[in-house]
């Protein structure tokens, strides 16, 4: 982690301290292959150039670079590992100084000082006094606080106009301030938590601290994967992304698993795209919706649920199945008790991870766990009170991808909905319900044979999809390695999207002879979110500053909507009838 931290810091430092022609000169001098691709400095991507240099050099080399090439005297850098002021580089960080400055601010201004800093962090860019004041309680004057923050070098002036000033928190100091304010899991808080956390059922082991180590590993995994991708496969991934779509991925999966089985894996991979939790907008503004959704596959054992949610995402080397999911963003929760989940959830505050739970039905068996689980599925504020301690309250911001085993005995929906927890899950997750039909059985059996005989080679396809998924995720979550190079784009719902869903709804309702319907209107919301997530696959195809919902994605969303409506309507109509009518 520290190594990756350093690379990120070095990258920011180099980019800030040197203009592009100097970066080019440095890169050429170091013989970095990236720079050989360019005839001159003007074609390089400054972000990539800085990253290439940063990931090649050591601290000693960095110092040498700063000694040889004159850095900009007017820039400052106050990182964890490096400090640059008045053109002089120090290999010692400024975080300790900033930390003590933060204490001073806290001491002098209390909550108000921290509120001002929070406002800066939330803005993520330069803020004027007016912007800060609008985030504070009425009557608090931010001017003296900001003046002190500037004096103590916690913020710097980011713009000086005519009688107008803006400040910002330096990018490299932002993680520290986030930690200190508890916006991201703070180290100090971590230490404190490790002292405070007392387990009831599971002895004296500090599961939160352990989980933080796990998170650190996962963060590292993502950073390393992304770094490698940016260094070696960026152009290829962008090129791949120009033609990639939900149809392409569906074709890929259909070829591998057949026309029935593919859909579960399609849902699983699309859910991975949704994890970026991108804002969904319409032509006139925000919808209040985001792309993230939970996935629940209901069905009898052996219907391929675990394969889709676990093996396809995390990979199964023994079965020659490479991972398709985002590296370091999927926490496998197999064998975990819900109590432990609720406890370790504290380590995930402010982070969006996907929890893969293979036996979700088991979690509901624990007494008193239904409510916190419901809250977790809603991404709400979790508080769990035990006789010796209280866990939380904390805000859980992760997602789930779960299997829910039900014995349907050929009757499908009836048995499932009799499960008292089904409504709770259906309300909060995109549910897919299926039985072990003959067709499904044949496809599973065939896939197993193909895999056993090595007829299925998904290595290459999986790598490309994973690269694309990781890059889109990094862009949409503003990962520091790509933040400055690719814009974050919201997904735009077009009027046509509503029109298509409405058409599907009318077609379904026409098929139901009764006055009442047996499925929830949430199905439509899930279908729309699915379409928006699937549209993220088109990131590199959109030249706008948004991604319009693609017609292909809508096609699959409608299919999902119709099929699920059919299952929930006790198959009063066949999906094919409606889909044919809709000409999809």
């Amino acid at each position, binding site marked *: 982690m520290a190594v990756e931290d350093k690379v990120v810091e070095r990258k920011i430092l180099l980019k800030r301290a040197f203009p592009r022609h100097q970066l080019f000169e440095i890169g050429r001098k170091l013989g970095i292959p990236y720079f050989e691709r360019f005839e001159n400095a*003007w074609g390089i991507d400054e972000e990539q150039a800085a990253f290439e240099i940063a990931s090649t050099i050591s601290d000693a080399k960095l110092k040498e670079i700063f000694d040889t090439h004159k850095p900009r005297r007017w820039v400052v850098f106050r990182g964890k590992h490096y400090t640059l002021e008045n053109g002089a580089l120090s290999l010692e960080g400024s975080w300790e100084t900033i930390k003590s400055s933060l204490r001073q601010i806290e001491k002098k201004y209390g909550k108000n000082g921290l509120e001002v800093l929070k406002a800066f962090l939330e803005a993520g860019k330069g803020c004027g006094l007016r912007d800060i004041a609008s985030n504070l309680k009425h009557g608090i004057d931010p001017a003296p606080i900001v003046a002190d923050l500037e004096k103590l070098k916690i913020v710097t002036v980011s713009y000086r106009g005519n009688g*107008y000033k803006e400040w910002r928190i330096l990018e490299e100091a932002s993680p520290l301030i986030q930690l200190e304010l508890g916006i991201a899991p703070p180290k100090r808080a971590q230490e404190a938590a490790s002292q405070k956390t007392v387990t009831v059922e599971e002895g004296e082991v500090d599961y939160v601290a352990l989980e933080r180590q796990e998170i650190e590993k996962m963060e590292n995994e993502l950073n390393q994967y992304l770094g490698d991708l940016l260094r070696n496969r960026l152009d290829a991934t962008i090129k791949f992304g120009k033609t990639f779509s939900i149809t392409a991925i569906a074709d890929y999966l259909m070829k591998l698993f057949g026309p029935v089985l593919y859909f579960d894996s399609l849902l699983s991979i699309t859910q991975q795209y949704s994890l970026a939790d991108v804002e969904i907008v319409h032509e006139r503004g925000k919808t209040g919706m985001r792309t993230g959704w939970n996935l629940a596959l209901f069905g009898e054992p052996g219907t391929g649920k675990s394969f889709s949610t676990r093996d396809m995402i995390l990979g199964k080397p023994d079965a020659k199945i490479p991972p398709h999911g985002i590296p370091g963003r999927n926490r496998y929760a197999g064998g975990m008790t819900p109590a432990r989940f609720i406890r370790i959830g504290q380590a995930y505050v402010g982070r969006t991870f996907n929890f893969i739970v293979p036996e979700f039905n088991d979690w509901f068996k624990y007494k008193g766990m239904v409510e916190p689980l419901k809250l977790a599925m809603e991404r709400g504020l979790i508080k769990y009170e035990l006789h010796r301690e209280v866990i939380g309250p904390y805000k859980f911001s992760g997602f789930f991808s779960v299997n829910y085993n039900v014995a349907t005995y050929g009757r499908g929906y009836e048995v499932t909905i009799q499960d008292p927890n089904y409504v709770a899950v259906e309300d909060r997750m995109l549910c897919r319900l299926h039985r072990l039909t003959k067709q499904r059985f044949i496809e599973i059996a065939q896939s197993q044979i193909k895999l056993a005989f090595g007829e299925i080679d998904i290595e290459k396809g999986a790598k490309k999809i994973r690269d694309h998924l990781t890059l889109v995720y990094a862009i949409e979550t503003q990962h520091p390695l790509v933040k400055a190079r690719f814009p974050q784009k919201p997904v735009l719902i077009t009027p046509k999207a509503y029109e298509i869903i409405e058409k599907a709804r009318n077609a379904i309702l026409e098929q139901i002879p009764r006055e009442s319907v047996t499925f929830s209107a949430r199905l439509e919301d899930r279908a729309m979110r699915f379409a928006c997530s699937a549209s993220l696959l088109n990131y590199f195809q959109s030249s706008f500053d948004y991604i319009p919902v693609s017609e292909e994605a809508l096609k699959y969303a409608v299919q999902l909507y119709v099929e699920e409506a059919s299952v929930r309507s006790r198959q009063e109509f066949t999906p094919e009838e409606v889909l044919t009518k809709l000409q999809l």
Partner: protein
Amino acid sequence: MLKNTLVLPFAVSAKDRCEVFTLNMEVAAVLLLAEARRRKLGFFEADRKTVFVSKLHYPLWFVPWEDGSLVIDGLGVFSAIIKCPALPDVASFIEDVERGVSDRKRFWASLEKHEKTFVDFAGSVEVKVGALISDRELLSAVFEYVGEASSTQFGENVSVVLTPPKLDVHGAVERAKQVSHLHKQVQSEISSLEYVRSLLNEAVSLHEQMILKEIEFTREVYDGEIAKLRPTIERKVDQLERERDAEIAKMNRIVENEVKAKERERGKRERELQRLELQKASFVRRRDMCRRRNDEVGLARWEHRIRVCENRIREVKRRINDLAEFIEEARRQNEADIEKLRSSYQELIEKEKSRIISLETQRDENIESKQREMETLKHATAKIVNNIEELINREREREKELKELAIPWRTDDASLVCLPFYLVGYQNGKETQLQIFPPVRVKSSKGIMKAFKKTLMGFTLSSRIKLFQQPRSKALERMLDFALKKTEKSDKAFSEVLRQAAASANILAGQNFRETLIKGLEELKAEGWIGQKEVDTLTKLYA
């Protein structure tokens, strides 16, 4: 011989010529021209004769570059001078603009500092690219020649006698690299100018956004102050108005009280006047009765009473008049006092209101000044951007010129193109005088015969031959003449090697020369180029 060698044909048939122009004819025609030339020089004496007629090849290197080839002179006689303007200090500009992005005052300073930076290039240098052929006419002639001879394929093991080249393939590639380097430099300069243009545009658009933000901020600050002040002001104005109205009411009340008393008195007086008027009338009636009765005493008494009554009426009227005047004056004075009071209060009210107006004016002026600043900023930037664009256009023009140095003929590798010519040596005593015959284009004999049916044989031999075969390009002719003669004179070693080459390629000393010549002359005669007499003369001389 190099792997990629293209030997161009000396004589290329024009489009209208269908007959084959044989090598025999080529040799015979050259000899005829050489002989005509010898005679023209006055070499009739036996010791001044043609010593060699050699078919040599001038080496030209075609080095692939971009979509064409650069033509490099194998003898290195020619060179190109390329003017390279020096770019203004882009690095300093970038630094100043980037620094000014977060500070508008500094940005203004950098705009002022660089107002003239991009007006022109910062000077220029001339780069000499040795052996590069840059003459447009010559390049076009070479390209046309190569195009016409396109049926002739590149190949190896081609046996020709070359004018000894001074530049090998590596030397030629090195020269071409110089052009490529210059081209890259131009491209880099264009990119740098485009970069600074976009940097400047981005910086100014950021400042524009910030000015708009400032305007918004200023508006909000002033509006906030105004909103804060307005209730106080309104309260004060209201208070003043109330005070004013109370005072006016008080003044009116006092005046009205006074006026009312006077009006009451006036009424009383008027009633008194009325009574007196009636009394007077009664007295007048009684006096008149006394007068009719001649009652002198009574007459005197009523006369007296009438006078008393009239006196009293006069007094009362005067009093009524005084009272009316008083009332009028009191009211007028009151009105004037009220007006004075009103205006003094109005002044106070205006003074209060002016605090808001002053703030509104300040706000509007402030906003206007920022809007003006934005316009000025845009204008100042546009000026620099225009200058940058002008430089970009000039650089593009340069790039185009550089690209025009290449002929649109692309080979995969550097190739040797052998450009044929005949070198004829005339001996004049101890000296040998050289004559070059450049490549020719051969016309259709039928066409010429048709046009000059009767007059053709009246032409001199040289003119006649030139009708049938013409040097293909003046530029090529000039090039060969200049390059060979200049080098031959200035470079003794080259002269020696050239003569050795000429000796080795001397067709007069060839084994089949006689047969070739006779066949050639017969073929030329058959096409009507020459007559039997000329055949005989040349046969006698050479065969």
